[in-house]
């Protein structure tokens, strides 16, 4: 019969339509729009409505999610101890070359120091590839999770300087917990090895 194929197809849309209400009832209308429900709504178990009501609801990014780099610093906001040593690997590795670094110099001797005096990322050019974070030997530059960067002015807001790039290590630990844990573990192991070696040397003496 002509039209049977269309009816068959429409049965699928009808199923989808009904499923939205099944979901509503299952979750008890209001609760469907809670953070817990959101995780189910956007998962392999999802049956009914799939959409997210942004900006009221925001999907949490995955841990590896990457969006424009930031610089990790230890210490407080007033006294920032950047992990960055201004070695310049990120600036070299960056495919679109959007990182600019001025290495700090000793004011008296003029010798280069292991920290940046200035650090810029032009986020108009940055393509969020994550190469800088991947190749940084000091875990000093990391990719951010904050993707809501809309601005009114391209001229001033889109070149991030040291002040803007810096974020505390606690923030890094929050957005990338497994990476931070692994890093701390490696550091602890290294410190333990160093202490052991030191003790052994002392014994030799």
């Amino acid at each position: 019969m002509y039209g049977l194929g269309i009816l068959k197809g429409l049965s699928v849309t009808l199923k989808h339509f009904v499923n939205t209400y099944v979901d509503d009832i299952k979750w008890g209308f209001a609760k469907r729009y809670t953070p817990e429900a959101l995780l189910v709504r956007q998962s392999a178990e999802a049956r009914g409505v799939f959409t997210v009501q942004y900006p009221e609801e925001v999907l949490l990014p995955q841990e590896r999610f990457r969006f424009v780099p930031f610089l990790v610093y230890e210490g407080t906001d007033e006294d920032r101890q950047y992990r960055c040593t201004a070695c310049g690997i990120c600036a070299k590795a960056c495919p679109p070359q959007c990182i600019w670094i001025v290495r700090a110099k000793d004011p008296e001797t003029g010798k280069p120091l292991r920290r940046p005096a200035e650090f810029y990322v032009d986020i108009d050019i940055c393509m969020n590839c994550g190469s800088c974070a991947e190749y940084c030997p000091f875990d000093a530059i990391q990719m951010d999770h904050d993707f809501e960067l809309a601005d009114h002015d391209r001229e001033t807001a889109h070149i991030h300087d040291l002040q803007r790039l810096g974020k505390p290590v606690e923030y890094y630990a929050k957005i990338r917990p497994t990476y931070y844990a692994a890093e701390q573990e490696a550091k602890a192991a290294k410190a333990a090895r160093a202490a052991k070696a030191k003790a052994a040397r002392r014994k030799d003496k």
Partner: protein
Amino acid sequence: MNEQVAESEGVQLDAAVGSVEQASQALREAFPGKVRPDEREGYEGVIVDADALVDAALFLRDQLGFRYLSSVTGVDYANDGLLESVYHAYGAESGALVFKVQVGCGNPEIPSLVSVWPSANFQERESYDMYGIRYAGHPNLQRILTWEGFAGHPMRKDWREPYYEEEHKPFKTRHPDGGVFRAEDRNPFGRNVQYSPGFDPAKWEDIAQSAVYDGLMREVKEEGLQTETITVNVGPQHPSTHGVLRVVVVLDGETVVDLMPVLGYLHRNHEKIGERCTFPQIIPYTDRLDYICSMSNGLGYVLAVEKLIGIQPPERAEYIRVIMAELTRIVNHLMAIGFLWNDVGAYFTPVIYAFNERELILDLFEMVSGSRMMCNYMRVGGVFEDLPAGWMEKARALVYDRLPRFVDEFHRLLSENEIWRSRSMGVGILPAEQAVAMGASGPLLRASGVPYDIRRVEPYSIYDRFDFDVVVRHNADVYDRFLVRMEEMRQSLRILRQAMNQIPAGPVQTGKKNWTMKVPAGEAYHRIEAPKGELGFYLVSDGGSNPWRYHVRSTSMINLTPLAEMCRGHKIADVVVILGSIDITLGEVDR
């Protein structure tokens, strides 16, 4: 050898050919003095004299069975003052026979091979545009990706882009005294445009446009009502062109008389950018070619680099790569079918259902790579990082349970719909011979009845370990292309299930990852079966850390070659459907 050759004469697409070495031997014997082996270190194939090229090509096609010309591209060996045109031809079951023609930079002219392999059409135009190699006898040798007022040929080594800084990255201005600047401040708008000598934009008359129109066929009616044909531009801004593609159509009433795609609106000189970069720096740029299938693009590129270096990734990385590539295939086919239905007029119901599933797969991509579309996940010698905890469970839930059910449901929703069948059956016929001659690949080729899948013919990575069917259908119309994609999703799921069961533990990277690497001098061409078809990467290294030549054999662009052939005689509304059935991404067409 010659008897063997004589026997294979006249056999159609499945002509059995000996090995590539035998073929190149036969070619050298047939054209003594005109064809000589390429003896440069790390190079393969033969160099053909320009005056013997067409005869040699005919011999290759008709006597030796190399019916499929995969790639044509130019290379600028500026140091030797030579321009080279490189061809990669394939037989039904053979590897690539590489042949090259060298000409001096001064007056580069090479006979065109469009008459032998029509698939050379767009590619020779591209090579002309990028390198200025003139292909004598080409039916329509115009610029294809840039415009006619463009100064110079952008892939020549002496050509410099408006925001030129240095030959190679990394640029010296960035560190240790990286005073920040914007490229557009140094070279503001108005000064950043170059014109070719003698070109005055104020006096410019758009002859190329009228040439496009004049180049199209007109119907001359002998009898009946005398009517005029009309020329219609579909695009560059048109919802059905999936991006910025312009299709010039000559219409007689509503019937298509002739048609020509006009490309280049999204051209960004991807290959030049690549040649400025170090080898690993190119990987994130490949994501932006076919932005729907970034994982496959990255895979094709790293395989080409690995071929050049001669390294193998670890087992686990191979499996992860296959899993990602097949998930990408599902994503692509979901979108291709969804948007094909949009083109027919089923506005957004199928595509949104497909997007639900795509969304879940993109979540998996975000988990492993950190990004949903611009994955940047493949690395030379492995992958970016191992699968995170919980990834496999999520993926299994999809691959074993949800996606198979969805594909069935999608079938129920679409396949038997009478409106769809009447719009797609018998529309856009592309016979097998033409599909092969015009360089069609992927689902487009397999729907024309040619069971050609690179995963099977020339297995790369670890595809030889999996059990899967090469989907092929024989009606060569839009409906069959749709069904081929539907079935390929099932086959991808099959591969995924096997890969997920077999995946071993272990490292995911050989050697140390680095942002730069020295690559031995030589050339390599690697092609993969990307979701849209044959995606090839041609690399030439001079032994440094940047490629001397980086070329992308763009699936989408070459699949557009048969568009006119498929559309002639159909209604204008069918053009949209046929274009949708080819499945193009403009990021890859224009590069």
